Each structure stands twice: as C-alpha cells, then as structure tokens.
C-alpha cells in the first residue's frame, strides 16, 4: 500500500496514536488486573483506572503460598505435564509429517484425509471412552492421560502444520543425500530435521501454551491437590480466596499468565507466521 505521495508526518503520528489507543483498549482488562494486583483492596473496585496510586507487591509473595500446596507446586506440575506433551508432539507429529510429505506408500491419500478429518473432530466424542480406557489402565490420578496421547500423535493439527512446512523444503536436498547412500532414517535425521527447526519451534510453543492452559483434561483426570497444575490451582484459589482477597487473586492470575507472556515475547514472530500460513485455531 505504499503510495508514491509523501505522507505528512501529522498523518503518521495520527496513525500511531490510533494504533496505540487500540492496543490499550484491547489490553485494558489485563492492564486493569495488573494495576489491581498492586493497589490496596479498597482501591480495586472504586475506580476503572489502570494507573496504580501506589505499588505494593506484597500480594505476590502472600498469594504464592496462601493456598497449600501453593503456586510453586502448581507451576512445577504444569511444567512437568507441558514438558511431556511437548516432547510427545515433537517426536510423534514430526515422524508422521515426514511420512506424509516425503514418502510414498499404499493408501497414503486415504490416511492423509483421515488425519485431516481428525483435526476437526470434537474431542468430546472420544472423551468418555478414553476416560474408561485410562481408568481401566489405572492411569486416572496420574499425568499419563495428559501426556501419552501426545506420543501417539493425537494432536493431528501439528502433523498438518509440519507437513505444510516440509513440503516447502526442496527435494534436491533429499536426493543429494540419497545419492550419498543415506537411508530414509538418515535422510530424515540429518537432512529434514535440521531444516524443520522453525516449524518445530512453532509446534513446541503452541503445544506448551495450549497444554499449560488446558483445563478440561486436568479437571477430569486429576483429583489430588498436590498434583494440580496451574488452571486447577487457580480455580481452587478463586473458590477459597476469591471473596476475601481480590488483590492476591489478581496477583496469582497474573503470575499464571507469565509463562505464556514470556514464550509469546520470545517467539511472537514465529507464532504469528505460523498462524498466517496454516490458519491455526484459537
């Protein structure tokens, strides 16, 4: 949209003003929560301002330990589940994507169509039999139902994302390796995998964020407080402290969003490129 006419600096400034206004309006809820976590309790519900009259950080350490076993445990539990889920998706989805994008085998089109269909399948239709299955295996109350499915590539969406990416990698590179006598596994390991790193990063970050925010899975499978990840811990905190200590509730809500913020800051370009090219849900 670059026009040949020189734009007046006033118009540019006006655009920046408009964009900043939109950003503040969009982030207003989060800014309000941030301000509410550092002001005295009575100030929270007496003005809509996002500028705190004073900054008192005591809600953070107080909220961190207020509700045993505390947010340290919830965070640690979340990270354990996320690490398992990320590893599972990276391994299983990459293997499947390589087969779909580079190998020729009977019924490939049928399997690929089936894989795409499962992307759109509502999770609820498999929820109850899966629960019965994991219950029979004695896995309820452990993290296995939240992690093992990822090692079986049930997040078909990421297979699709990786297939799209791998199709864009020139085949000449594979062929050169094949002439050097590499077998399929070596071609995958030493040619494809290093070139797929950007898409693997996107897969890892989205898997982390979605697993970290997942509420239904932990709600169904976990009941012991000591095993709670952040979403269940925060719900418990809301029920226990929600009426008495809003400052701490907001402080802990904010802390729980922090890992998502950090990953977003580090990877925002990759994430947004990933959405633009594959049309991610969310």
């Amino acid at each position, binding site marked *: 949209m670059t026009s040949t006419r020189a734009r007046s600096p006033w118009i540019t400034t006006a655009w920046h003003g408009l964009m900043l206004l939109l950003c503040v309006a969009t982030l207003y809820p989060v800014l309000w929560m941030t301000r509410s976590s550092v002001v005295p309790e009575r100030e929270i*519900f007496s003005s809509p301002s996002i500028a705190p009259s004073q900054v008192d950080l005591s809600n953070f350490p107080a909220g961190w330990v207020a509700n045993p076993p505390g947010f340290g445990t919830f965070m640690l539990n979340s990270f354990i589940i996320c690490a398992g889920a990320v590893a599972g998706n990276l*391994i299983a989805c990459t293997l499947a994507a390589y087969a779909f994008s580079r190998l020729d085998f009977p019924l490939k089109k049928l399997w690929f169509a089936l894989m795409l269909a499962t992307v759109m399948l509502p999770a609820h*239709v498999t929820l*109850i*039999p899966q629960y019965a299955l994991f*219950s029979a295996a004695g896995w309820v109350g452990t993290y296995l139902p939240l992690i093992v499915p990822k*090692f079986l590539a049930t997040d078909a969406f990421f297979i699709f994302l990786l297939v799209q990416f791998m199709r864009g990698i020139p085949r000449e590179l594979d062929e050169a390796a094949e002439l050097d006598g590499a077998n399929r596994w070596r071609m995958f390991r030493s040619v494809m995998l290093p070139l797929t790193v950007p898409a693997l990063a996107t897969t890892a970050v989205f898997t982390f964020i979605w697993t970290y925010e997942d509420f239904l899975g932990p709600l169904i499978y976990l009941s012991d407080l000591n095993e709670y990840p952040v979403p269940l811990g925060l719900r418990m905190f*809301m029920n226990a402290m929600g009426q008495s200590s809003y400052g701490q509730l907001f402080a802990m809500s904010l802390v*729980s969003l922090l890992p998502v913020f950090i990953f977003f800051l580090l990877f925002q370009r990759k994430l947004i490129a990933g959405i633009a090219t594959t049309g991610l849900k969310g």
Partner: protein
Amino acid sequence: MTSTTTAAGGARTSPRPRWTARRRKDARAGYLFLLPWFIGLGALVIGPMATSAYLSFTQYDLFNDPVWVGLDNYRTLFTDDPRYLQSLRVTFTYVLASVPLRLVVALGLAVLMNRTLRGMSFYRAVLYLPSLLGGSVAIAVLWRQLFGSNGAVNQLLAVIGIDGPNWIASPETSLATLIVLAVWQFGSPMVIFLAGLRQIPAELLEAARVDGAGSVRRFFSVTLPLLTPLVFFNLVMQTIVAFQAFTPSYIISNGTGGPVDSTLFYTLYLYIKGFSEFEMGYASAMAWVLVAIIAGFTAINFLSARRWVHYSDQS
C-alpha cells in the same frame, strides 16, 4: 488430478517395474514413520468413537456394565430434558453471535493495519495477544471481576452516568459477557486476514482508483471479494471451535452453568452429565448430537460458499 487409467497405462508402458525395491522400502518406511500415529488413531480415536457410538444406546455409569436402552437417550434429550434444550439455546446464541462479531472485528482491524507504518508488527503482536490468553482460567477469573457489580466495566459506565447491573450474576446479561470474551479473542482470524490483504495485487486497487472508485467502494468491490476464501476458512474453523468452548462457561458460572442455566454451554452440560452425574451413556449421546450439529453447520457453510466465495482462478 491424474485418473487411475492413465496412471496404470503409464506403468504398463514404462520400462521400469511398477513395484521396485525402492518403492517397497519407501512403503515400509512410510508405515514405520506413521506407527505412533496409527496406534493413536486406533486406540484413542477410532476405537473410542465406536465405543462412544455404542455407549450412546446404553445406560452406563463406568462402574457397572452398560445396559442397552435403544434410542432412549436420544429420545430423552429432545423430549424430556429441558436443561438440555436450554444448553442448546445457550450454545446456539453464543456461536451465532460470537463468531460473526469476532470475524467482523478481526477483518476491520486487519484492514486498518494493512499499511506501512513503523512498528506495525509490534501493534499486530499486541492485538494478537488476547487470542493466546483468552482461553485460560486466569482470564475467566478476571472476567468475573471485570463484569461484577463494582467491576471495571461498571466503573467505566459510571463515568458517563450509567448504573450498570452485575453482568455476571443476572441471567439476562451473563451470556453476553461470555460473547464479549469470545469476540475479544479476535487475534487469529485478524492475522490470517492481514496475511490475505497483503496478497491482494496493488494494481487491482490502483485500477479501481483510476476508475474513480472511492475507498469504501474499493473495499466492497475489490478487497472483500478477493478475501472471501479466507472469510470462509475462518468462518468454518471458528464455528467448529466455538461449539466446543468450555473453560469460560465453567469458571464464570463456577461449574453450574448459572445463573439459572443462562451460561450452560453444551460442553459444560455434557461434562456435568458424564463426570458429575456419571450418566456416561447419556453424555455419549450428547457428544454424537454435537458431532452432527457441527457437521451440519460445516455442511451449510460449504454449501452456501458456492454463492459467496470467489476463487480468483475459477472465474
């Protein structure tokens, strides 16, 4: 699209045998690479789907063997369960309001951002952020307070002299707060629209400008038609996702769907039936009706697409 006859004919005339050692190796490698996915597909998708279809015709509480009841579950859903019908009403309202609103906001902002301005990728990142945060428990917790009787929304309204209700606690407005929360997460479709807008050839818009079309006319006659494939894609995907929303309704109503079932989402009622009341046969029937509803909506979207989606390489 190569038809099978030409493929077979080509193989017959080709000097190389159709089934070479290399192809055999490839086939074996392909199935090995797909092994984890195959196990998952069988054990965690197709097997459970078949089981769930069977369970939907039974009475099942997880601890005793399922008892065959024929079509009873489906009959009860539509004739003898007012709460179920209420959850349908709530969910349809939510989907039909939040999806179009979200797409309109996303498209509007994408058009606004489709210009060269230093720092635009920063603004884009900030506006995308709610998409990542919106589904979390933390934001749902925040929403409860934001729309509470003394929350920030009413404080803002008080500035212009309006005395707002407790939006969360009154059944007339509680669902609206969830729709606002959904619209707030406009980031993904916005980013997709923006990528699409950047693909539109500048010559087309320039030609329209030369023909005397104003900016509004250019948008509706050039930009929007070229963007309809993406509008369609977003509409299909966002509808499927919206039908499955769960966390906000659970947190805002504290797991009840209240006040007076005004936020009883389909998935929340399914959860209550399956995992609180252990009527897992009934919940399975609900899951299959949900699949049918989503499939129906997707089919309607695809059928209507012929009328309004333009693919530039077809005309």
